[in-house]
């Protein structure tokens, strides 16, 4: 979140102009559900930013979502729980075209939450004693081996919401919520692609999933 700015409306073109070479981008979505497809398309077609680190549960699918950016050779590093859903991402790691950090999905989620929540690190029992804990600090807590995991933050987050009000409060539909609230909180600049923008007051205060404090730019989705 940038300091002192309410969410502003922007076009996808204006939005992706913020992405710089070397940026870390948090990309929401479980597979392509809840992914900001219009922003990803604009990033592929209207931006030349490269050497990107992408933090995303999957690296898109072949030729779809982040998969386009991968084919363009603009991804330098991926942080993910499941590269395997895009065979081209696996091939890119194996050929050395990109580097990879693999995390258990719960650790991946919790690390992004920690990044947004100002937590310096956390101990989890998940992955302790396995290949994925190699090189990380491990210790027994109450007799159970835990591994210390670091927070994850991004320069930019691409999130997708079904509805936003004009302030930038977000509401996610069904399982499209997934990583969106975590990523919205963990980036310096949070760009929300939304299906529908409603007047202030149209969302119930108890039902807002991401308060507008986390949202910098609102972009109308052209995905559906």
């Amino acid at each position, binding site marked *: 979140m940038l300091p002192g700015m309410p969410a502003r409306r922007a076009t996808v073109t204006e939005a992706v102009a913020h992405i710089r070479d070397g940026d870390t981008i948090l990309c929401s979505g479980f597979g392509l559900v809840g992914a900001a497809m219009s922003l990803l398309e604009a990033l592929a077609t209207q931006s030349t930013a490269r050497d990107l680190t992408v933090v995303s549960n999957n690296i898109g699918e072949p030729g779809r979502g982040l998969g386009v950016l991968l084919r363009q050779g603009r991804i330098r590093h991926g942080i993910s729980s499941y590269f395997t859903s895009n065979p081209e991402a696996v091939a890119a790691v194996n050929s050395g075209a990109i580097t990879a950090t693999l995390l258990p999905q719960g650790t991946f989620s919790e690390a992004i939450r920690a990044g947004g929540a100002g937590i310096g690190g956390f101990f989890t029992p998940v992955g302790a004693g396995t290949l994925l804990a190699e090189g990380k600090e491990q210790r027994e807590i109450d007799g159970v081996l835990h591994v210390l995991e670091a927070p994850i933050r991004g320069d930019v987050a691409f999130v997708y919401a079904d509805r936003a009000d004009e302030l930038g409060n977000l509401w996610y539909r069904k*399982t499209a919520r997934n990583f969106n609230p975590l990523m919205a909180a963990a980036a310096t600049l949070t760009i929300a692609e939304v299906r529908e923008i409603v007047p202030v007051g149209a969302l119930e205060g108890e039902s807002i999933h991401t308060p507008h404090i986390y949202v910098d730019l609102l972009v109308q989705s052209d995905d559906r």
Partner: protein
Amino acid sequence: MTADDARRAIAARAAAELKPGEFVNLGIGVPTMIPDYIPAGSEVFLHSENGIIGVGPRPAPDDVDPDLIDASKLPVTELPGVSFFDSADSFAMIRGGHVDVAVLGALQVSEAGDVANWAVPGRDVLGVGGAMDLVVGARRVIITMTHVTSSGEPKLVPECTYPLTARACVDVVITDLAVFRFVGGRLTLTELMPGATLDGVAAATSARYATAL
């Protein structure tokens, strides 16, 4: 028995392990067949780690909702009382011990209850998903798998040779030949599947185990 028959027999047997009121996470593969064998009204609540409790059956093609999927990324329906939550909350549920049962496939299970189910040495080690979280966090871990690999190698082994998912976390193993439980920490054959024999199980198992039918 065809391979599909074997898989269906495993799924049906696994379904019988689930008790009314339990919150259950079903992994990909054989576990996704389990809902077909849960009687209606049994009050088994299905959790999927992408952020839902109250998963219903697969929809008819015309009823697919693009925002409603399970952890296999396939369309599902929702049951009354459904709730949705984000991925951090979903894995808080799993890691925090709130999910009663996880049913997952495996590549190997050791006689100590270790499980290897995410990676094969020499192949790509690039996808783990929620497997580690589920076997560590769920109160009861049920492994469903064919008894041997496609080349006939035992999967119930003295020590896992594949990269571990977690140590000493398995409670029940259901294969096409038998049901095993860890009784007092010891791998124990407790039931033969229809058509299987004690000798057949012994020949197909390299792990040491007790027998208590």
